[in-house]
């Protein structure tokens, strides 16, 4: 159920990135897609009522594996967030430079390249 919502969020982001005409809205769409993927990664490792995956003395029983949250997807999400931050910063920088050159954010008017 939650996965469906997550996928829906991904689709909303994709729709926004593909259909919208404003460059800033396209960037927002890409950001929504990235958040949806990060959310998906976190949900993969999450467990209802789970415990933090830190082993304490005397905790080595089999119960630990069954109760702990999987930490690996969290590490993945952290890395993915850093990458998406770099991409977004670069995208916004290009948006600002484009606005400086063309004086508009509308991609239907920014069409020097075609054919």
């Amino acid at each position: 159920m939650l996965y469906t919502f997550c996928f829906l969020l991904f689709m909303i982001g994709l729709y926004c990135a593909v259909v919208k005409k404003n460059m800033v809205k396209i960037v927002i769409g890409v950001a929504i897609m990235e958040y949806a993927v990060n959310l998906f990664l976190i949900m993969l490792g999450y467990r209802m009522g789970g415990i933090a995956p830190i082993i304490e003395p005397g905790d080595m029983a089999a119960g630990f594996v069954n109760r702990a949250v999987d930490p690996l997807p969290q590490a993945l999400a952290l890395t993915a967030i850093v990458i998406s931050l770099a991409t977004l910063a670069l995208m916004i920088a290009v948006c600002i430079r484009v606005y400086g050159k063309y004086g508009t954010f509308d991609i239907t008017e920014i069409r020097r390249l075609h054919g």
Partner: protein
Amino acid sequence: MNVALPVFVALPLITAFVLALFNARQKGVATWIANGATLLGLLLVLVSMNQQGSYQVGRWPIPLGISLVKDGLSTLLLLTISVIAAAAMLYSCRYMEQYTAKTKYLSLFLLMVAGMNGVVLSGDIFNMFVFLEVASIASYALVAFGCEHQELEAAFKYMVLGSVGACFVLLGIGLLYGNTGTLNLAQLSTVIRTTGTNYGLSFALALFVAGFALKGALVPFHAWLPDAHQSAPAPVSAMLSGVLIKSLGVYALARIAFNVYGISLLVGWTLMTLGILSMVVGVFLAVGQWDFKRLLAYHSISQMGYVVMGLGLGALILAQGGSATVASLAIMGGLFHLINHAVFKSLLFLTSGSVEMTTGTRQLKELGGLIQTMPGTRATCTVASAAIAGIPPFSGFWSKLLLVVAAVQAQMIWLAAVTVLVSLVTLISFLKVQRYVFLGDLPERLSQRRENRGTMMWAMAFLAVLCMCMGLIILVPGLREGILEPAVLVLTDGLDSAVVVLNP
């Protein structure tokens, strides 16, 4: 000699960050350091040609830590990346003087090389994604480097499509991890072999195909490529077209499809369809172009179609249980065309940069008669055009011949016919380039311009000599067994190649 695998990533990465500290007045030193780094990288690849194996980062054993794996296919790609990077860097010494902030350019360039080396060496799918993004982000910035109208527009388009592709890949990685519980490529393949595929894994494969095809600009996903390649500075176009779309797109796709999921009919047909579409659509869009670099960019799509078609044909034959010899012939044709294309297309982009630098225009109709003023550029461009069109002694002929022979032996005469037809159209479009750029009347305003000598010419001459000699790789058995056959073996082995990594 044993070279530690992280060197291939660390050397350009460290140099990139050191170069970022240099200011504009020290750019002479920075250029020397950058060239030293790419040449040293090439040297290291050459001395470790026969070395295969894996390296565990931080000495964590395979399922726990990150591993770097160097097998035949990685070696082939590593060699291609190093050769093209060295040539493009040498060319940049003079060419990039036109732009400001040259040290930033050198730094981004090396960052891109580090990312690509990381992609081909990575034995871990998430690590592959990280390096893919390192190379992509550096290339977005390099496409926008000129900061003029066209560059910014192209960079924005490239960046949005690239990020969408990256999201697809990351979602696929998440699905893969959720279904198998591991991220190591070799372990993934053993898990998938024992459990079989389910809907989640198939959906992940679809996401990978879409994501990597976006990065590799195969035909339904090619919209960004002509703009980006046309607008970037010439050495960057050479790197993008020569190695970036190969290592980020085709290599990653082949690695996932052949060695993680295993060869199946579906994969074979998908690759074949993408390849044939790219071949045909790319070449017909290219013929009508009047911008030199845009024409070359569309040919990149078409020639990458050959590579993917070869790989797909091999997968199809193996999946149908056909002759393994024919399958490896098709895959060898594809991989050989990959390295050939890297050399001749980089050379063509470098010559187009030389023409643009001397004349100030890329429009074919405004050029002409440059044979009188630019003999060196003309000679190298002719060699590269002959190679891409598949004229016999040059490199492109041999790889196309292998593909045609493989298609005929697989009883797909129509495929061989399409291959030859596309090759003919390529020849026509390069005759057009020769006719409009180098032959004809020299316009009055261009008669006083002289071509650049020095490092730019050396870089082009180096690649032109390679174009002429690369047929030897297929003709001399020693070279073939040393360079191509290990790479072909990795792909034809499919899932079995994982065993080598897990039990060295």
